[in-house]
């Protein structure tokens, strides 16, 4: 089969954006302003091409690939090229039910981000950087080689760093550095874990694609296969102690990226200072890299350690969920509130993972996807709010419903989607998490008090969202008394590109809320497979799972 991933999905956005940037950097200041329009158009077209390719993949346009029923460690559109042979590094790409939704989501968000931030300043450099960000993100999700995975993992930091530093808010200098250093620190610990894992492979047991200098392999399918064979024999792959240590080291990198309490402090700063486009991609896709990585590496390779750390993960998830929601109540900054709500929602993912149920995992996967559509809308609304009212404070603008109906409606819709209104995408994931958690508690005889946290959070989430809506949309407001921050300008509403972006995001939120099976079926099939193959053999006395 032709390679539809390497060049079209990864190489094309990266190379084209680099060429555009190189071209722009040689242009003069006035020329750059003139170039802004054509470059924006080019980036939009390029991102639509990407979206076309991934959508085509979904509808089996590029070869007969059935996304449902993909087995564990089975990859479609898979290709492998030798990269650095002496170390066993290959350019290996492939898609499965874990990565494909994320790749589609990335390609979906790219054009939406470009549309939503249509009038961003310095467009000639901004839009290529957004495109490069997309290429790097896709690279993370398609990489099936530890080295390649790490390279793209870190590569995503660079465009995001520049997005925050050059287009961010007043405190962007601090936020961009904090973001970079915080996540970099966790990643290098993860890197050491990956290398230690690499050398703990047994070179005597024939490894595919091993390096000529080292005798070990960076190949994720190979490592997963060896781990699976060892784990399903009832042994701990690499032994109990090492497995626990490596699991912890890898998880540190992913938990910081996710982020989970107590590693979440970089997120509110990064979000508040990031430009709208940066926030949309950051919340929409970049956070999901953490959850994606957990499934791809620690869970697949070290299921025993997952069981060992199950309680710890459950606690971290619960704390993230509850803490994120409670902190939201105290926020006066709209964007910060949304950022903390992301922390809370990432807690849902972590709880889903910690249940070790196929449905819990499917809930986590679907949450990654649903939050990937809803949170960009949240940030697009925040961006519009900031753009039009020159303030981020809740209450800086009151009674929006009267004079800015578009912003008010979008905000209401996004807020409702995020708090889990039935028939919208977020609800499906939360409901599944509840079912899985309830089942898990019941089957394992855990205390029923574990349900208190999530139940409480439902109320708290509704409270902070409704309360903020009350203060911005409904209460007060009068056309004759526009807010002071406008300095007498006419009260604005959404510009047309912003309206379009809101409509697209809203449409897909409804689509995946009403017909979740479009994505959910493949996710649940995959988690069921991984559960049957990986978890059931180690759970012993446990019967079944949903």
């Amino acid at each position, binding site marked *: 089969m032709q390679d539809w991933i390497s060049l079209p999905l990864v190489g094309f956005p990266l190379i084209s954006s680099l060429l555009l940037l190189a071209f722009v*950097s*040689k242009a003069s200041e006035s020329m750059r302003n003139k170039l802004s329009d054509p470059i924006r158009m080019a980036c939009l077209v390029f991102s639509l091409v990407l979206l076309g390719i991934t959508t085509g993949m979904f509808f089996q346009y590029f070869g007969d690939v059935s996304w449902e029923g993909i087995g564990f460690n089975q990859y479609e559109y898979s290709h492998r090229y030798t*990269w*650095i*042979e*002496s*170390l066993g590094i290959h350019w290996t790409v492939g898609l499965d039910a874990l990565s494909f939704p994320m790749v589609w989501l990335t390609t979906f968000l790219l054009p939406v981000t470009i549309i939503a931030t249509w009038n961003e300043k310095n467009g000639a450099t901004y839009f290529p950087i957004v495109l490069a960000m997309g290429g790097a993100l896709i690279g993370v999700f398609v990489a099936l080689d530890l*080295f390649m995975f*790490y*390279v793209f993992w*870190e*590569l995503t*930091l*660079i465009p995001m*760093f*520049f997005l925050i*530093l*050059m287009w961010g808010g007043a405190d*962007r*200098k601090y936020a*961009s*550095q904090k973001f*970079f*250093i915080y996540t*970099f*620190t966790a990643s*290098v*610990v993860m*890197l*050491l874990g990956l*290398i*230690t894992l*690499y*050398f*703990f*492979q*047994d*070179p*005597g*047991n024939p490894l595919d694609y091993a390096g000529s*200098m*080292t*005798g*070990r392999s960076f190949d994720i399918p190979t490592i997963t296969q060896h781990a699976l064979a060892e784990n399903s024999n009832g042994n701990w792959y*690499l*032994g*109990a*102690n*090492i497995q626990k*240590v490596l699991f912890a080291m890898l998880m540190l990198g992913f938990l910081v990226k996710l982020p989970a309490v107590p590693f979440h402090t970089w997120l509110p700063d990064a979000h508040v200072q990031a430009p709208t486009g940066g926030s949309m991609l950051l919340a929409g896709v970049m956070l999901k890299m953490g959850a994606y990585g957990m499934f791809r590496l620690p869970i697949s390779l070290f299921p025993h350690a997952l069981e060992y750390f199950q309680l710890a993960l459950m606690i971290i998830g619960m704390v993230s969920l509850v803490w994120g929601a409670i902190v939201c109540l105290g926020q006066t900054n709209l964007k910060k509130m949304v950022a903390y709500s992301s922390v809370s929602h990432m807690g849902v993912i972590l709880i889903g993972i910690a249940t070790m149920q196929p449905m819990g995992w499917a809930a986590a996967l679907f949450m990654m996807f649903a939050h990937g559509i809803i949170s960009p809308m949240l940030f697009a609304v925040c961006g519009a709010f900031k753009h039009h009212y020159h303030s981020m404070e809740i209450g800086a603008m009151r009674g929006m419903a009267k004079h800015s109906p578009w912003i008010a409606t979008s905000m209401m819709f996004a807020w409702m989607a995020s708090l889990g209104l039935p028939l919208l995408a977020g609800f499906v994931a939360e409901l599944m998490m509840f079912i899985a958690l309830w089942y898990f508690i019941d089957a394992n005889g855990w205390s029923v008090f574990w349900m208190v946290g999530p139940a409480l959070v439902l109320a708290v989430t509704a409270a902070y969202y409704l309360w903020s809506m009350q203060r911005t949309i409904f209460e007060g407001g009068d056309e004759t008394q526009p807010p002071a921050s406008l300095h007498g300008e006419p009260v604005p509403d959404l510009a047309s590109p912003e309206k379009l972006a809101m409509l697209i995001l809203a449409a897909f939120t409804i689509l995946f809320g009403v017909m979740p099976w479009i994505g959910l079926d493949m996710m649940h099939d995959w988690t069921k497979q991984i559960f049957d193959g990986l978890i059931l053999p180690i759970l012993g006395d446990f019967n079944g799972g949903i």
Partner: protein
Amino acid sequence: MSNLTEIEPFGKGFVEAMGPELILFAGMLLLIIVPNLGQGTFRIPGTQVRLPWLLGGKRFEFTSDPRLPAWLATLTLGGAFFNVLYAFSQGLDRVAIVSESGKQLLLVNGFSRIFELIFFGALALAAFSSMNRLPVNGVGSKVSETELFNNRRQADFYILMVTCALGMSVVALAQDLFVLFIGLELASFSTYVLVAFLKESKVGVESGMKYFIVGSVASGVGLYGLSMLYLWAGSLQFDVLATAFATTSSTEMALPLIGIGFVLVGFGFKVSAAPFHFAAPDAYAGATSPVAGVLATASKAMGMIGLVRMLLIVAAPETGDGSAIWLACLGVLAAVTMTWGNLAALGSDNPKRMLAYSSVAHAGYMLAALTAVGAWNWDAAVSGDAGAAAVAVLTAVIFHLLVLVAFKLGAFLVLSILESEGDVSRLSSLGGLAKREPLLAVSMFIFMISLAGVPPMAGFLSKLLVIMGIVRVAVGDMGAELADGGIYALGDMHWVWWLALLMVLNSAISMFYYLRVGVVMFFDEPEEGREGPLPTGWQVRAAIFACVLTTLLIGVAGDAVLRLCEMAAQSLNYDW
């Protein structure tokens, strides 16, 4: 491995083997003669007949061109560089230059050749990019730049660069500790003068003096150690020393250990390992940026050769109980060096001092790698994998030194452009570089994140290799043992694994100050008086872009270079 050919000095095959050195020598002579060619005549005594002999007098237009020495030096160093590359492409012969009594003095093999590549590459880039900017900043100078630019000191500067290269290549080739020290001193004295070359500025003289005094003390201590080793073994040949070291019983170790320790002080100064690094930041800050770049790359590689030869050949890891005798000592030194360097760099606002401290940190990473080699036989269980592991670590060190030339020297070259419009002793002098010349700012950013070890830059690959080498040694054959039902915990790994952890944490710390440079360039406004366009000069820009391309290319596709380094590591005269 090809057979060893032994030739005497000036014997058959000498010219082929010593090609790069002879090119350097010839270039040095040309550098002395050509800029002095003029219409000078010689009157035969007692007559009125004047014979033109071309030396002195009014110089020709061609020979008075201030760029001439720079071109000569660049061509000489570049010629030597390509000569080495050519030797690589022809497949390497191992050639030893022996004395009349049959002692090996110099040895040409992959190991020495790759270091020559590093030296000549770094010096050629430095010479090429100094072409249109000497003298630099002229802090406190009364003389105008044009006047300084037009004087004959040009030639001195480039002669010193070539002698420096000559000394360094002798260090790379030496098989005798004494020959090695002669090369080291030749290169050191050249660098002392190069650092102090800006005699018009107080900073230059002060830093030169400081560097000279500390450097000569370090050399003196090293020579004292040398004499002790001679007293003990009766020879300074590396192989004689190694045999003597292996056969000396542990009760009689005091003299050689003290001797080796003293010699290591001399090399430790060159690689700027803590606690011998104190002169480095001052020297870098006072020297012109290309010279500082040479100090941070070529000079450091030179010191590393000394360390490798002393630690891995003379005081080789024992086969009996396992690890090398210096293992714990070097491990502590590595930990202190990398942490100290990074913490000091955090607090320095002067970009050149910051780069100097980052250079100290990088020395720490390489010392950590050497520590891992010393642990190679720490347990019988590892022995199967040990040789390959040691080669892997050494490959990583060589690779790191090689790619360092691209991004470390490149960073100094960017500073060098800014330096020719004024002082760069504050980070804010980089302010607004992205607005003034975007490509330069992007280049500097690439150098910075490469130094920090962010993929896909070459610096990431080199750091990855060092970490991989250390982890490989630490893990050893445990993977195979695990498969046979062995049970291991974290503590069963050799303790050098913790050096790898310290190294990644240090990388994270270093991110602070590397990123700060990027923030200043892309975020801050230019300093007062720096709003205009940057000084011109295509040579230095060409050198910078060559460095950027190398950084990116090796980072993305470094396999060929990696294999070259592996070959060099294998060819180190050491029977793994």
